[in-house]
């Protein structure tokens, strides 16, 4: 028999308690992993908007609560285009419409047809819309497949019927679940003439990207440039809030899980004080007692974490099916998710078991053996 055998034996002897504690840990891991995947996916989706096309960076209005509220004027676009190191810049307008109950957040992206290629859009079926057409639209291939619409067919969005002229691909899930139509048409529909949501800027070969970004932010202080994920909060405060909510939720889950583990471990400590005294009396060191108590908590936490990850898989799949999140929530499980769950379990063990373990080890054998 070794310590692991004894730990296993002790947990099996208190099955109901071990399972309930593991469940508390599993719920904590479920919360943390699901929130983590959700936040990371939303961040990834948001970032994929900014990375659409082959731009070196994007430009949006600084400090808006949601990127969709960003307003960039045509004059701003013209100014950016005049900068000597800028090779090209295109402006797009992004709007959200309710298509039906299953697609409450259907994206419409207004792009001039001549800028489609530069925006990274590849027409895979049919043709692009005309620049002045008011009733022509292209669908991303994922959206077309989801809606069952083909080239030559039609689609009605909020009482406006469009003819589908083509199917496109952008290489981004976000873009491929959206629709595109002429910039001026969308501006008119949204009553935002001359306004765009984002600019996509490409610089000349050899030019310094950071220098160009600084130049734009200096010339147009109401705008912010975005190149990396960490820049994104500057143009979308929601993401900062979501990230903060994720952190808050994770900390709360950690505390609840740790309290659960500590409660069980302390209860076990009080029940088994005499047992620890006997073990000390027959030569077990304090460290071995600590290892026994922490080992039991760690095994429960580890099993709970594994169960939590499995539950999180299910929860994330369910979330991904929610109509409100279609096209926005594209979950990916990375190795980081598992490390996060493992780290969470380790932290819960540490927070929940170290104190009871230290108490168990500190007691003198005789004192512990007299405990009733």
């Amino acid at each position, binding site marked *: 028999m070794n310590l692991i055998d004894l730990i296993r034996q002790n947990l099996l002897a208190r099955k109901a308690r071990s399972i309930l504690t593991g469940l508390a840990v599993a719920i904590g891991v479920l919360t943390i992993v699901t929130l983590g995947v959700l936040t990371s996916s939303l961040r990834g989706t948001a970032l994929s908007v900014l990375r659409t096309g082959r731009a070196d960076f994007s430009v949006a209005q600084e400090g808006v609560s949601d990127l969709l509220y960003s307003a960039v004027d045509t004059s701003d676009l013209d100014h950016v285009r005049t900068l000597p190191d800028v090779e090209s810049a295109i402006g797009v307008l992004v709007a959200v419409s309710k298509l039906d109950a299953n697609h409450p957040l259907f994206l419409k992206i207004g792009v001039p047809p001549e800028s489609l290629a530069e925006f990274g859009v590849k027409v895979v079926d049919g043709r692009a819309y005309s620049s002045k057409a008011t009733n022509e639209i292209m669908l991303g291939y994922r959206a077309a497949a989801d809606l069952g619409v083909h080239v030559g067919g039609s689609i009605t969005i909020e009482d406006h019927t469009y003819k589908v002229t083509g199917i496109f691909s952008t290489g981004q899930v976000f873009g491929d679940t959206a629709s595109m139509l002429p910039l001026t048409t969308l501006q008119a529909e949204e009553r935002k003439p001359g306004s765009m949501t984002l600019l996509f800027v490409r610089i000349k070969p050899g030019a310094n990207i950071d220098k160009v970004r600084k130049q734009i932010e200096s010339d147009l202080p109401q705008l912010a440039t975005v190149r990396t994920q960490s820049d994104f909060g500057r143009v979308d405060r929601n993401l900062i809030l979501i990230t903060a909510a994720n952190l808050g939720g994770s900390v709360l889950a950690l505390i609840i899980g740790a309290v659960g583990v500590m409660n069980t471990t302390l209860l076990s400590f009080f029940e088994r004080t005499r047992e620890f005294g006997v073990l000390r009396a027959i030569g077990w060191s*304090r460290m071995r007692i600590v290892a026994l108590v922490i080992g039991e908590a760690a095994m429960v936490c580890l099993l709970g974490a594994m169960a939590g990850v499995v539950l999180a898989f299910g929860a994330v799949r369910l979330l991904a099916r929610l109509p409100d999140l279609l096209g926005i929530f594209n979950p990916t499980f990375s190795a980081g998710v598992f490390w996060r769950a493992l780290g969470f379990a380790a932290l819960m063990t540490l927070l929940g078991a170290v104190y009871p373990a230290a108490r168990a080890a500190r007691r*003198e054998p*005789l004192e512990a053996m007299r405990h009733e």
Partner: protein
Amino acid sequence: MSEPDIVVKVLVKDFDHGRIHALTGLDMEVAQGEFVAVTGPSGCGKSTLIHLLAALDEPTHGTIAVHGQPLPSQPRQLDHYRRHAVGLVFQLHNLLPNLSALQNVEIAMIGTGVARRAQRKRAQQLLDEVGLSGRTTSRPAELSGGERQRVAIARALANNPPLLLADEPTGSLDSEASTGVLAFLQSLRIEHNMTILMVTHDPRAAAAADRTIRLRDGRIDTEAVEVLT
């Protein structure tokens, strides 16, 4: 007589900040391979003596030497002493309720560097010796009082200690079970030359020992030696 295995000199143990005097200057020697019974009225310091010899408590004054060495004071040496130098048997068996008889013996060997297979073999052998070869998988609740005490003795012997300290080992047993336990302790002395110090209230149990030391008010009252035939 052989060399003394236990040498106790002017041993004093006070409790409750000196208000209670459990041992008041005890001098005692036990030879190697000797089976000694310590008797006396309740509160005379018998169990305190066992606890001090097992290094579960520290004396207020005086010295104890076991196997020619003073008792250790460093934690690591203390753990080693408790594990390898003495085997301890309690009045209440103090077995772990969730473990089988075999596992209760093996538990004393966890962390000693003995391989699992060797641990199992040793535990099995000890349970055979105490007459429990057929009860290895039974848990304490499934064993009789005498059987539990024999498992506890097997556990105390797991790491081959040269000294066995038994605190009222027959105190909670019926006479038949007591006879079995005492017979086994005698066989340990005879076959393995083990030094045994047994605290008991029971004159019949004391009679099984080579010698009886009677304590009164924390020191030796009378000394009687009975040689086993």
